[in-house]
């Protein structure tokens, strides 16, 4: 068992542990930071899968962007008076029942699909850290989707600024 496989398992286990921590902690700030840890370790797992660029994007977008957004959201939507920010839980029993059912179904599906035995899985993991191939693919075959996703992001960000911004009452009429 070589060192990279051990690191891979450690990163995967840390991802699962931080996801469980997010699910079962009460404090919202702890949950936000544990989410970021989870996504960070997940980026490490992506590197082992030959997806270097996606790992970098994951760190940039989630750790750089979404964490800040989430923390701003927490600050703007809670009266901060020094006490802990606790999120109450409702219908915990049905929640656990539901996720136990979904968990069992998904695990059973994964086991019965039996990907390990399938033919295309026997070949080597061929996805090299091919940034060149990835970029060429993105700018030739998927260029329409790429441009559209940029447009979508622009519209969504302008729209969210418009929604959240404070508007003067007099300017709001027209």
């Amino acid at each position, binding site marked *: 068992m070589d060192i990279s496989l051990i690191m891979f398992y450690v990163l995967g286990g840390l991802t699962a542990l931080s996801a469980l921590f997010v699910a079962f902690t009460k404090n919202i700030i702890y949950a936000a930071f544990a989410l970021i840890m989870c996504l960070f370790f997940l980026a490490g797992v992506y590197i082992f899968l030959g997806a270097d660029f996606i790992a970098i994007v994951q760190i940039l977008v989630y750790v750089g962007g979404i964490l800040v957004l989430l923390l701003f959201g927490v600050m703007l939507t809670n009266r901060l008076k020094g006490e802990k920010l606790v999120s109450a839980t409702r219908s915990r029993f049905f929640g656990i029942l539901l996720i136990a059912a979904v*968990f069992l179904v998904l695990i059973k599906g994964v086991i019965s699909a039996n990907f390990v035995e399938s033919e295309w899985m026997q070949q080597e993991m061929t996805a090299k850290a091919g940034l060149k191939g990835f970029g060429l693919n993105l700018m030739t075959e998927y260029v329409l989707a790429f441009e559209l996703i940029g447009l979508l992001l622009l519209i969504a960000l302008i729209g969210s600024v418009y*929604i959240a911004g404070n508007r003067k009452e007099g300017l709001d009429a027209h």
Partner: protein
Amino acid sequence: MPINFLLFLGVILFCCGLYIVVARKNVIMVLIGIELMLNAANLNLITFSAFDSGELQGQVFTLFIITVAAAEAAVGLALVVKVYQYFKSSDLSDISDLKG
């Protein structure tokens, strides 16, 4: 890399996200749960993309999902801020009026 481990990891992430969305009262926590579920989907796409020699379709699709997730988080948090200003609460069980 062992594929079943990665698929189980995706299942765990998805179930954690689903539990948060179903069982938490705070709106921000629900958004966190949605992010976790999106990342479970991303992990599965990248796992299968690793066995896709030339095309890297899963990675391309994951890039699009990350972008849409960022847009969704921005719009969702803007809506949450506005809803908080109206209802003075970010608790989902307080936000039950359709037209106030």
